[in-house]
């Protein structure tokens, strides 16, 4: 009994010694808008971010790419802000702005000198209240988004197959298995009415989180938020459709050819447990043991010892975010380029040997300790910028109604044991739970 108490005390001490306490003020406006304010005095800047609880996962069927197209439309004007003026006002105030569409959220944010926060709040409130779009603007952004798809996907070697194609092949529920960037024909088929409907359906204050982080005064910011967002009417938001994914029953190996690539590549992914399950944190640490850096097991075996792979990258919510900013089925993914003369089976054989070893023998105490250190280092990287903090606070508020979770994460991960990692490896890192895509240059395939 006493021994347990000492262990816990030591643990708390070791975490507390390095902990970064993030201040969190959290409340809801009467219209349902969740608000998080978190002040910090490191740099004279602040981030204003609005996260809406809709991403490309649940965009309308037959309208692939629509959630992203819609994100572009949010920059096309609102009642008091003309097209392009959002950027004009923010940049003239010294700020930077952007938006992004992800699996389960769409965000809009400005990082700017802290004295200009009110400008950003006014602009975000105006477009949350009153999107104002026209046929011309829609046509223009359909062209722009189509160019984005060409630029990011169709004109690139590998065409983002490590997530676009992997998700479509690993999953069976349409919501998880459609083309998230969108088919060009479906993007150009979108109608102005679709844009207006989507806005009315999902862009409600009660389906959003507003976060302000940085060098701000909490009381003054609160008053500004009340003034600009307080009277935006609440709307009824539909229940989320069933996005669940059934258990995979057998391994899937897919082959593709690539007209633009000159070096073969392999991507593979394992279905992950739910974020709220007890297996999740162990899987996050297992990912770091296996592919967290160049000292990890996959890199050392495949790139160095066997010299089959040329590089090795991977993770959770790979290329789309991190382990916290999504809410639904997820893959633990990998992408590796490999030397001509080898094949995908050579790599998967080594991967299976490594995961089998972890399942049978577990990870060493040193590997677990190092994975926790790596986790902490990565975690601090996310806390460094006002945007990084806003992203975590918004995700915890949006998906768990608990932004203060930001101060509990490190402690939770410190408590994970080697036995939990071993058990998780046995359960999830098995071939049956895996989908892989071998992407070979068309020239080589001939």
């Amino acid at each position, binding site marked *: 009994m006493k021994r347990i108490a000492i262990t816990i005390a030591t643990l708390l001490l070791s975490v507390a010694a*390095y902990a*970064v306490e993030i201040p969190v003020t959290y409340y809801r406006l009467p219209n349902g808008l969740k608000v998080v304010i978190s002040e*910090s005095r*490191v*740099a*004279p*800047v602040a981030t204003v971010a609005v996260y809406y609880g809709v991403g490309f996962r649940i965009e309308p069927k037959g309208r692939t790419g629509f959630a992203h197209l819609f994100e572009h439309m949010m920059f096309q004007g609102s*009642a008091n*802000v003309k*097209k*392009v003026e959002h950027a*004009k*006002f923010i*940049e*003239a*105030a*010294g700020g*930077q*702005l952007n938006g992004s569409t992800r699996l389960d959220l769409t965000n809009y944010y400005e990082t700017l*000198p802290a*004295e*200009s926060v*009110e*400008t950003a709040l*006014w*602009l975000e409130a105006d477009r949350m209240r009153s999107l104002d779009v026209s046929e011309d603007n829609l*046509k*223009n952004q*359909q*062209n*722009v988004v189509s*160019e*984005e798809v*060409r*630029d990011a996907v169709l*004109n*690139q*070697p590998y065409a983002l197959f490590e997530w676009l194609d992997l998700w479509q092949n690993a999953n069976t529920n349409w919501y998880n298995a459609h083309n998230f960037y969108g088919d060009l024909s479906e993007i150009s088929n979108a109608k102005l009415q679709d844009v207006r409907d989507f806005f009315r359906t999902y862009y409600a204050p009660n389906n959003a989180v507003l976060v302000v982080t940085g060098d701000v005064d909490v009381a003054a910011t609160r008053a500004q938020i009340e003034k600009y967002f307080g*009277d935006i009417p609440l709307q009824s938001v539909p229940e989320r459709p069933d996005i669940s994914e059934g258990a995979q029953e057998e391994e899937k190996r897919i082959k593709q050819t690539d007209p*633009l*690539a*000159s*070096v073969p590549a392999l991507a593979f992914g394992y279905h992950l447990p739910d974020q709220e399950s007890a297996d999740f944190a162990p899987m996050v640490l297992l990912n770091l043991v296996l592919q*967290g850096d160049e*000292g*990890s097991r996959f890199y050392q075996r495949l790139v160095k010892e066997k*010299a089959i792979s*040329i590089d090795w990258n991977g993770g959770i919510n790979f290329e789309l975010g991190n382990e916290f900013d999504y809410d639904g089925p997820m893959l633990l993914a990998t992408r590796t*380029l490999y030397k*001509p003369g080898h094949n995908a089976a050579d790599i998967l054989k080594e991967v299976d040997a490594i995961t089998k070893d972890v399942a049978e023998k577990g990870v060493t105490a*040193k590997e677990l*300790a190092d994975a926790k*250190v*790596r986790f902490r*280092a990565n975690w*601090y*990287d996310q*806390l*460094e*910028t006002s945007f990084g903090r806003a992203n975590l606070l918004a995700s915890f508020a949006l998906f768990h109604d608990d932004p203060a979770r930001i101060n509990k994460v490190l402690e939770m991960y410190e408590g994970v044991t080697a036995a939990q990692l071993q058990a998780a490896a046995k359960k999830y890192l098995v071939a049956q739970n895996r989908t892989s895509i071998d992407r070979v240059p068309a020239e080589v395939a001939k």
Partner: protein
Amino acid sequence: MKRIIAALLLIATTSLHAEQKTPPPPAAPRVTEWPKITERKLDNGLTVVLVPLHNVPKVTALLTFMSGNGSVAQLAARVATEGTTTRTSRQLREALRAIGGSIGVTTDADATTFSSEALSEFAPRLFELLADSARHPAFPKSEVELAKTNLAQEIAEQRSSPDFLVDERMRKALFGAHPYSFVTAEPDAIAKLTREQLQAFAATRYVPNDAHLIVVGDIDVERSFAEVKKAFGDWAKVARVADAQPAFAKRDRRQIYFVDRPDSVQSTIRIAAIAPPRKSADYLPLRIASTILGGSFYSRLNRNIREAKGYSYSPYSLAQLQRRAGAVFVEAAVRNEVTGPTILELLYELDRMRVDAVTDEELTSAKRYSIGSTQVELETQAGLANRIATIYTNDLPHEFLETFRGNVEKITAADVRKVAAKYFDTYRGAIVIVGDWSKVKEQVEPFGDVTVLK
């Protein structure tokens, strides 16, 4: 009845927001307090710059050598962290993972930089590992051979990317025989490189003279300086090799290069001209000019080519100034059908900057945007470290950060037009297009003689 209520609501809402037709004007800018920068010199010539930034419990350290670039520099950088005289590659990786750290080595036209970071509680260990990599790289034969094989594959992979191809061809076009034209080694040149060449390179270039170490993070200046001294203090000075500095070729006409990439569904277009060294007094006005032209969302290129015409997702411009010379360029990736019209718009916008004054609105906004961007860099250890590194690699005045805002605020529309006229000179610049020649040939040929590269 219902209609009346709706109408009332509308009026009520309107009156509530009557005063909100325009956003609240930004408050007066605050004075930026730059973190205190402490500079010390070790006896061996190493400049040590220490900057506390207590945002997260981490530390970033950049060690930069003015090494120049080339095939040997590129391969040496790659193998430098693959083993020292006392640690294997794997031991080094494991030591780094135990401190939540990393060391990456990169080369650019002027320098080789060892970029490292770790949890700040392990800062002394990071300095030790960084010093070991830079001072005692062993270049083990097996690691050199593996790196050569992998680098050759990576180059093949890079050359399948339109962005890489356009950058590579443009540097060749602008800088010709000068070493600044180097982007990556040729695979056959890599095959011939030897371990001895790497050792000789490191022995004469990875030396403390003319090197600088910038440490930013959750540190105490005196304690960190003592730790740095312990890791780097007994490093012996070595006579520096003075690199030949050939003159840049005079450019007297526009050249057009087309890199044929069959099956491309876009043309990636870059138009560039030679710019002055980073130290030039023209730098700040040129930066403002580039911001107005295509360096922000509200820029001319974005408003015209993206928001009005819908030709491209992300047209932009950049003033990329290095120690001895630089380049200013505009770029857009566009669907094949609008290749010609986009070249026309890019040339038009470049010429417009040279001929017409920018508006007060554009100028005021670009200045505030530039000042705000440097404030945002203060948020991250790496952002601040890299900003400070440019001061040292380009031999800029030490008060660059403190005077930045005042110097930007002084810039006039006439200053902007003057540097635009001087440097956005595409008549002596180059146009590089990467795309499918068979599909866009007719659209490119009207702009002049085209050199097509397969």
